[in-house]
């Protein structure tokens, strides 16, 4: 099986990165802070004003190690990548299927709702008895509602719009009770409904940040198997939008990002001091907070689980790559349907 390679995150402002032989060297104020051989890396993610030497950019592009540039707030800026790899026939097939994507979208939507539901059920099981009765009831209602939506989605005759509608309805219910799962006694660390661009409270700031990291993984995964990340099924095409990466991400979001955000906040690994509250109302992670989230994210990717379809144990970090591979196999006609990833 493919080896899970590492990602180097550079968050220190004013750091400079250079190539030395077959190593990536990170320096801060001319002191060497990290030295990593290229063959251990799959990508480099850089936050804000960091210098990358031209020979390093060239070497990474050649080796297929992607460079992702984010701004200080973790918003996506640019991506540097070598020549497009993969297979024309597969991409043509992808474009063709994207005209009539009902079955694939059904898989994405079913898995997304099922995984959201699992997040809620897991919270009820782990600390449902500590919740005030009204909050608990609200969560239980959404769990039931999602079961109903799942049944509705399973009908083959329903079209694409119904599927998109079901996804929206499920998400609305899910985020209406997401705040009830937060156990931090800190009043400043709260959730008032999903908000983005900009996130308006700390929980949204963590979610947005994790979604950015996950998009980047899914996009690399799509590109790794030779799919075009811009042509999606559930997400409609829009210039500059990595629709396929967003599609692949839907089923992974609840477990990879939402649950991680909940644990970080409920275990009080993130507190009010880890956020920057701006006058405009925007809330962002500060340097310390970002470091905590990145460490947890990297650790989470190493956790191993049995893949429900492949029945092989794989680290979570490989799941986006495995899903992209299964999708490619389905498009090629080797698999009758796309088997989504449902958490157990």
């Amino acid at each position, binding site marked *: 099986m493919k*080896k899970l390679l*590492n*990602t*180097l*995150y*550079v*968050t*220190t402002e004013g*750091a400079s990165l250079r190539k*030395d*032989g*077959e*190593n990536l060297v*990170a320096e*801060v104020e001319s002191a060497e*802070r*990290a*030295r*990593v*051989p290229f*063959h*251990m890396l799959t990508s480099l993610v850089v936050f804000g004003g960091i210098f990358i030497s031209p020979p390093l950019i060239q070497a990474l592009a050649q080796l297929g190690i992607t460079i992702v540039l984010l701004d200080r707030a973790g918003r996506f800026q640019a991506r540097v990548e070598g020549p497009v790899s993969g297979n024309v026939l597969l991409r043509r097939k992808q474009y063709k299927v994207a005209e009539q994507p009902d079955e694939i979208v059904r898989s994405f939507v079913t898995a997304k709702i099922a995984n959201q539901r699992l997040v809620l059920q897991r919270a009820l099981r782990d600390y449902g008895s500590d919740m005030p009765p009204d909050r608990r009831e609200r969560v239980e209602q959404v769990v039931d509602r999602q079961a109903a939506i799942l049944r509705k989605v399973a009908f083959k005759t329903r079209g694409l719009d119904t599927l998109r509608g079901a996804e929206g309805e499920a998400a609305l219910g899910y985020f209406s009770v997401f705040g009830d799962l937060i156990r931090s006694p800190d009043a400043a660390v709260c959730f008032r409904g999903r908000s983005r661009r900009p996130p308006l409270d700390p929980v949204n700031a963590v979610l947005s940040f994790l979604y950015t990291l996950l998009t980047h993984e899914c996009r690399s995964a799509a590109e790794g198997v030779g799919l075009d990340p811009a042509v999606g099924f559930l997400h409609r095409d829009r210039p500059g939008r990595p629709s396929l990466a967003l599609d692949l991400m839907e089923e992974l979001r609840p477990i990879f990002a939402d649950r991680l955000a909940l644990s970080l906040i409920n275990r009080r690994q993130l507190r009010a001091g880890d956020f920057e509250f701006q006058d405009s109302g925007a809330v962002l992670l500060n340097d310390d907070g970002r*470091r905590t989230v*990145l*460490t947890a*994210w*990297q*650790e989470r990717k*190493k956790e191993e689980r049995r893949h429900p379809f492949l029945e092989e144990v794989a680290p979570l970090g490989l799941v986006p790559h495995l899903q992209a591979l299964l999708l490619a196999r389905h498009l090629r006609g080797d698999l009758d349907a796309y088997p989504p990833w449902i958490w157990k």
Partner: protein
Amino acid sequence: MMVLVTYDVRTSEPGGERRLRRVAKACRDFGQRVQYSVFEVEVDQAQWIKLKANLEGLIDPAHDSLRYYFLGTNWQRRVEHVGAKPAADLNGPLIV
């Protein structure tokens, strides 16, 4: 797999310094220096063959020596470190 590469390069005659430098550089391309002439390299089979051929082409077998210790894939439990200069965990979170 993890391989521990150690070397001894004789520097007392002309060309020795140069060989020493080149051997160190070749090892550093694939791994990390844990002590002066000791490198830990984590490589797959193909990478290992490349590195090995490279190293063996650089040394002078009459004066220098190379030793490889194969620690396998479960090497973490077989390595203990005491004292200064702890090695970085290249598989752990890499955040600068």
